[in-house]
């Protein structure tokens, strides 16, 4: 851990400028990931800019949807009655993540930007293209249990760890960003990148870009939605596979559906192919299974110790089926 300067800017603009103007500056929100990285020597900023006071910490109504300030704490967001009622998958996703203490610190803007928990990324003594571009990917052939099966590349097979982000992806959330060129919005599904040949970049954000809010559009289908997280212990573990889903069934037919997957890719994985396969189809288990299969057509397991992560492919199918069966049974 190295000494750094600490700044508390007056407002979001000052915060953005402080970081944008210094290649070695970082934002500090809840600090639940950054502080670990400082201790582990994964990042060595000269300047830490505290943004906990510069963006809104409120959830407000807007255009029939909700507008979530970037500084809203995860625990507050999960407990918000409007979120619980209108977007239950988001509340469930938040509550399935981390621990009570961490949720009390973590923020809406920071949570989606946490970095992979790949053991090789977090260990300075092993190769990792995300941490040290060009050094190689040690996860392939190694501890692959938590690695991805969709959208991986030869350079990186890491997964994105956030639960909240999976729900936001399914909900077509919109990210509000303040950058050096002003304000802009990014569809949440386009915020995160696939690793490709540049795995060091997790998102499309540029240095200095500050998330100021996340907007949830009015999404009636989400009123009956679920977040199901399958993990190696009952609490405080990252997902092996998670599914955020909402489904609208009328007369036994799927009118609309939203599905996003966690634990499977470098980004929260919106399952467009599965959604497409299901729309207009009978809401029966065989169709759920086929929809999952459609999404997994390009899935590839990572070789590694203890059988790698091949089990994730059937696990995705089983979990998707389980969640959709549960949702549609409630529908009836």
């Amino acid at each position, binding site marked *: 851990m*190295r000494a750094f300067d600490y700044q508390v800017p007056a407002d979001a603009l000052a915060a953005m400028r402080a970081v944008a103007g210094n290649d070695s500056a970082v934002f500090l929100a809840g600090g639940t990931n950054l502080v670990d990285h400082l201790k582990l*020597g994964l990042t060595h900023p000269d300047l830490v800019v505290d943004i906990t006071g510069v963006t809104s910490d409120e959830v407000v109504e807007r255009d029939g949807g909700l507008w979530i300030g970037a500084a809203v704490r995860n625990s507050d967001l999960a407990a918000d009655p409007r979120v619980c009622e209108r977007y239950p998958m988001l509340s469930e996703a938040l509550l399935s993540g981390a621990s009570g203490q961490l949720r009390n610190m973590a923020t809406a803007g920071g949570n989606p930007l946490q970095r992979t928990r790949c*053991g*090789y990324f977090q260990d300075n003594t092993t190769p990792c293209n995300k941490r040290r571009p060009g050094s190689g990917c040690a996860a392939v052939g190694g*501890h692959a249990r938590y690695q991805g099966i969709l959208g991986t590349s030869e350079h990186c097979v890491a997964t994105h760890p956030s639960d909240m982000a999976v729900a936001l992806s399914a909900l077509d959330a919109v990210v509000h960003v303040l950058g050096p060129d002003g304000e802009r919005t990014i569809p949440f599904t386009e915020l995160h990148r696939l690793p490709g040949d540049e795995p060091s970049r997790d998102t499309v954000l540029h240095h200095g870009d500050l998330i100021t809010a996340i907007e949830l559009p009015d999404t009636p289908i989400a009123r009956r939605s679920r977040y199901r997280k399958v993990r190696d212990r009952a*609490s405080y573990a990252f997902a092996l596979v998670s599914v955020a889903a909402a489904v609208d069934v009328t007369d036994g037919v799927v009118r609309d559906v939203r599905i996003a997957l966690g634990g499977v890719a470098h980004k929260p994985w919106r399952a467009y192919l599965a959604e497409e396969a299901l729309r207009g189809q009978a809401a029966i288990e065989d169709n759920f299974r086929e929809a999952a299969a459609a999404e997994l057509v390009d899935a590839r397991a990572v070789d590694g110790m203890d059988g790698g992560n091949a089990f994730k492919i059937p696990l995705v199918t089983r979990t998707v089926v389980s969640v959709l069966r549960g949702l549609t049974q409630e529908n009836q």
Partner: protein
Amino acid sequence: MNAVGQDMVRRDGPAKVTGTATYAYEAEVDNAAYCHLILSTIARGQVTDVDVSAALALPGVLTVLTPGNVEKLAPTDDAELAVLQDGEVAYRGQIVGAVVAETSEIARHAAELVHFTYHVDEHDSIFTTDRDDLYRPKAINPGLEPDTSIGNVGEAVRSAHLTVAETYSTPMVHHSPMEPHATTALWQDDSLVLWESTQSVHSVRTDIAGLFSLDAEAVRVICPYVGGGFGAKGSPHGNVVIAVMAARALPGRPIRLALTRQQMFAIVGYRTPTIQETTVAADRDGRFTALAMAAYGQTSRIKEFVEQTAAPTRMMYAAPNRATSHRIAALDVAVPTYMRAPGECPGMFGPEVAVDELADALGIDPIELRVRNEPEVDPETGKPFSSRNLIACLREGAERFGWADRVAGARDGDWLIGTGVAASVFPAFTLRTTANIRFDHNRYTVELGAADLGTGAWTVLTQIAADALGVPVEQVDVRIGDSAYPFASVAGGSSGTATWGSAILTAADTFRDKYGDDPADGDEAENTFIGTGFEGGPYATYAFGAQFAEVRVHADTGEIRVPRLLGVFAAGRIINPRTARSQFVGGMTMGLSMALHEHSVLDPRFGHVINHDLAEYHIASCSDATDVAAHWIEEDDPHVNRLGAKGIGEIGIVGTAAAIVNAAHHATGIRVRHLPLTLDKLLAGLP
């Protein structure tokens, strides 16, 4: 009224919950400096050059210890303690240097700036049973024969009605006590004070005095509180040697050294992975005709520790033909050590699952099958058991758990439900310890260099002393955790309470013989209790138990939950039901954790554990251990020791994993023989 047997609250409880109990790293000293270890990033080779210039240039850095610049230690055959004596690297994560600085942050920063150049040799960290360099050790922990054989197992298997011959395995696991290994060291006026988190202040003193060629009197080791040890603090590791080197390099300056969580996975020991080729043969009635285990484990190329994995197979059940063996791979890996119930914990996994498999194949209830194979005497030594109440534990457990209502194919919504049982065992022995008793101002002070790892020693020793002296507990001050007190044995092997309590009884006898019931101020007596040693006496002395698990497996996802875990133990006299229950429940919880979660993933390409923190190395969370209950039966054992007490610190972790795996089989029909029991091992077999 006797104090022993009473539900007395922990004497150290208020200090701990109010944060006033000082642990090793918090010792009250002035002007401390901070030491941070540097670990090797290669698995085998030599340090050929160390560039410390950047580190030394950092303001606040006091010194950098490297293989070239530290004091020569006295010759030792313990290569783990001979730190920085040469540049040889025998495993990844071995200590290759340390930085001492004004703050812990500066020390940690400077550690990143020390540049090492290595000559790298090819390393070999792959543990398998098909290696051609497996060897038979001279002895296994704690000094037992590696191999035993009675009758002819092969013959018996050929003529058996049914045989289960399967390979089971348990992975590498780490102790990970909540408090990391930590030291505050002060070298002043030619003497050394160590505030050290340890299970044995006296063995730290002996080892450190030997390594630094000091008189034992010049070394004092203080350790009033320990935040868990589980064996990892049973004997000193390289970190304390570094702390002493740093203290001697900076006389008068207290040095604080605490390991990071990641370093805890590198240099303070672990339980070896085990592979257990297990054979149980039986006749038509389920009577065992042969019992055998060929056990395999790993050790470090530079220091041998052999887990006694097959030891419980030698005494658990009757069978005319029996064999055990231990073979070891010496690899380029860190040094393994004892971890809660060495031998019994991993070694009861294979056999207790195999017995369940046999019961299933024979169509005999697994409790009944165990009852039919209860031995009259210790099968290998022929010694009578001082007491053996396994059957009573099984019967009472069955009653409490509702075993009779067990049904196959039970289901609750999406969850498949099963139940399972397994037996527990742990040897009872005592070691050498001296206690001192002094009377002053109507109070007794009892001193001995024992350790309380959070187990309750402060409390139970007070109860024992009060009864021994015939006074209320309020009149007794027990003092432990300081090498200035008389020699006491390690807090290990579940031997602490029986040993230290016996020493207090012995010293109290002497005191009362000398001074009667009406002593004068300043009266003082000391005596030494010899103990049985690991070999034991004329009786085979063991605690027994039975564990019952309910397991639920999600039919879609294979997720595994253990909503109910119940243990019944026969462990002699229970000194304090409150602290005893905590020990049993703690052991069972750790057993649940072993069953479902714990797995140190050693990547053989690098030679170190990749999931080296408590976010990635899973232990059971509160949500995983929702209903863990422990009970015990009254057991009056006049032979085991004067207290009639057997150890309780370790038996709780023995058998738990087998009970859970057996219950998972009952729920799903899938037999998992390799821990941990994770959902990927069930998925393919689910409906």
